[in-house]
């Protein structure tokens, strides 16, 4: 509240705090700093340092009877593994729209949640999905196939 010269003051309107009240300002300033710092510190807690999820790298053995071009879904994984004349490859089945699990269909993959459709190589065919389904890194040693869900490779990479 600013006071103008000549204005009558009552005991309810004391003089404003002197501008350069050093101690007061220092106290206020340090309080603000401590407050902001503690908020910042508290915000660090909810962001987990490591996330408690199972290993992203896993081995599968593809059944010999798997027909060419048909998806094999390793139990408990959101991945479709294929084998054809050119080799083995794996495509993630997590829809790039909002994370539902797509189902293999004659046309490729279909998502049950908002109707995204993908071709057999993961390209978006229809619906809201913004990106193609990623191809995952696959490595072979003998007959076991290792899929790494964290590493994506260029579409069309078969081993």
């Amino acid at each position, binding site marked *: 509240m600013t006071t103008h010269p000549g204005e009558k003051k009552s005991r309810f309107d004391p003089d404003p705090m002197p501008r350069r009240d050093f101690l007061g300002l220092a106290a206020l300033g340090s309080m603000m700093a401590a407050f902001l710092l503690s908020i910042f510190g508290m915000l660090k807690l909810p962001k987990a340092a490591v*996330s*408690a999820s199972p290993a992203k790298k896993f081995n599968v053995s593809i059944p010999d009877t798997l027909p060419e071009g048909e998806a094999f879904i390793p139990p408990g994984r959101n991945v479709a593994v294929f084998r054809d004349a050119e080799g083995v490859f794996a495509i993630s089945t997590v829809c790039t729209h909002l994370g539902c699990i797509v189902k293999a269909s004659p046309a490729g993959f279909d998502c049950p949640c908002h*109707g995204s459709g993908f071709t057999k190589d993961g390209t978006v065919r229809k619906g809201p999905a913004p990106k193609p389904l990623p191809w995952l890194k696959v490595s072979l040693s003998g007959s076991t196939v290792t899929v790494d869900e964290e590493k994506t490779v260029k579409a069309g990479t078969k081993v």
Partner: protein
Amino acid sequence: MQAENYSALHEFWTNLRAIPSHVYRAMFRGGPPKTDRTRSSFIFGNVFLHLHSVRTHLWSLRWSTTMGLGIVTTAAFLITLVTGILLMFYYKPYPDIAYQSIKDIHFIVPTGRFMRNIHRWAANVMVVAVILHMARAFYTASYRKPREFNWFIGWGLLVTTLGLSFTGYLLPWDQLAYWAITIGANIAQSPREITDAMGITQWMDIGGLQREILLGSDKVGEEALIRFYLLHVMILPLTLAMLMAVHFWRIRKDGGLAKPKDADERVAEEAKEFYPVFTDSPAKTYHLAAVVKGKTSAVDSGPEHTVPSMPHLFYAELGVLMLTTLICIGLAFISDAPLKELANPLVPENPAKAPWYFLGLQEIVSFSAFMGGIGIPMLCVIGLGLIPFLDREKEGTGEWFGGPGGWKLVKWSMVVGFASSILVEAFAIKFGWLREWFPDIPQLIITFVNPGTVLTAIYAAFSIWAVRKYNSTRAGALALFTCFLCGFIVLTVIGTYFRGPNWDFFWSPSDWGGH
């Protein structure tokens, strides 16, 4: 010095016998609330009741002023509070176990199913009531000066209420819950649609951060469940309770509910039955008022046609509370809260649907995750919050559909709101959208040009027309609010009843087949 015949033992005995009356008098200093005067002191002497003012304007008591919707919301909240605490006796927030504990509550715990049903229904009633209450505050132009801040608090209450419903939806850990939250969390991540297109996700992954903070992990798992539980039973209810206290207090400090300028004349007939204010208690608590500077709501307004809040307002409030309770209990008898199979992260529920009030969102999310889930909702939420600061006109305050244009404009806005949303939806359902016609179209174009944004643009254009036609911001607000409300209804109905497996269009859920 004690008197000769003083007997401490006797005194003790008298005190013992007088305990009930002394406790009573210590609690209620003003004596029993039997006259207007003692009732007044009863109200302002009680920390809970004094959120009310001692007298209430007859205009505020009219059914048509509020339709009791704020109290319905309050009542529904109280019901969820009581039933929620009861559910907490048995609920265990850990994946799979959570599902079992809900099953126990539903099938084994005495009255468990009933409490769960009431809780679920009261939550739904609360969401409906808070939306209607907001609409009533909007249409009666009650958000205007000096009530801007209270509209703002109400806005916070709306967001908190929706947050409570959303977090509660995960807790049963069934298929419905799991996939709704997976979708919700991925909506939080959808700013990636923009950052990906600009190629900056590596450096500035806002979407990813939001999702990670929400879930505490990279998928919906134990961390997410604990977080949602904490939000649902602790953080959000506390926030809501605090905001509610401010909301109520503010109504009082803003001079009661908004009313038209001539409200006094209009209730004059009813007022004849009551004693006018200031006759019985000339010694008002005037001293405090003398030290307050500035212009409060009561300055310049002479005695009005008010009646004592106790009993007139309190009976009305109690009536609404009982009615709300009755409705919730009735619904709980008729219909059980759903519980699907245990959550399965490998097989999505098909169709996977969010709670019904988010299905309108899910409908536009099915065109673009970012625009539908974040862009347009943000626009609505920010627009809602700013209404009182954009419309600073005076005409029509306290009047239903008050302001330039009035009911006629609202009627036309309803036509535009319903027609354009139905047409845009019908077009998209029948002919598909850009991707179906131009398979190689860049995602960014779809993000900005999709049925959701087209509809928003139509609504905006219509409101600009209304502003110019009536030369009034209020007219534009009336048009825009009505349009969005209608669009919300149409999209919600389509999302709820006309979308089936694969989010395909079906005329009726009975055609879904095979489920």
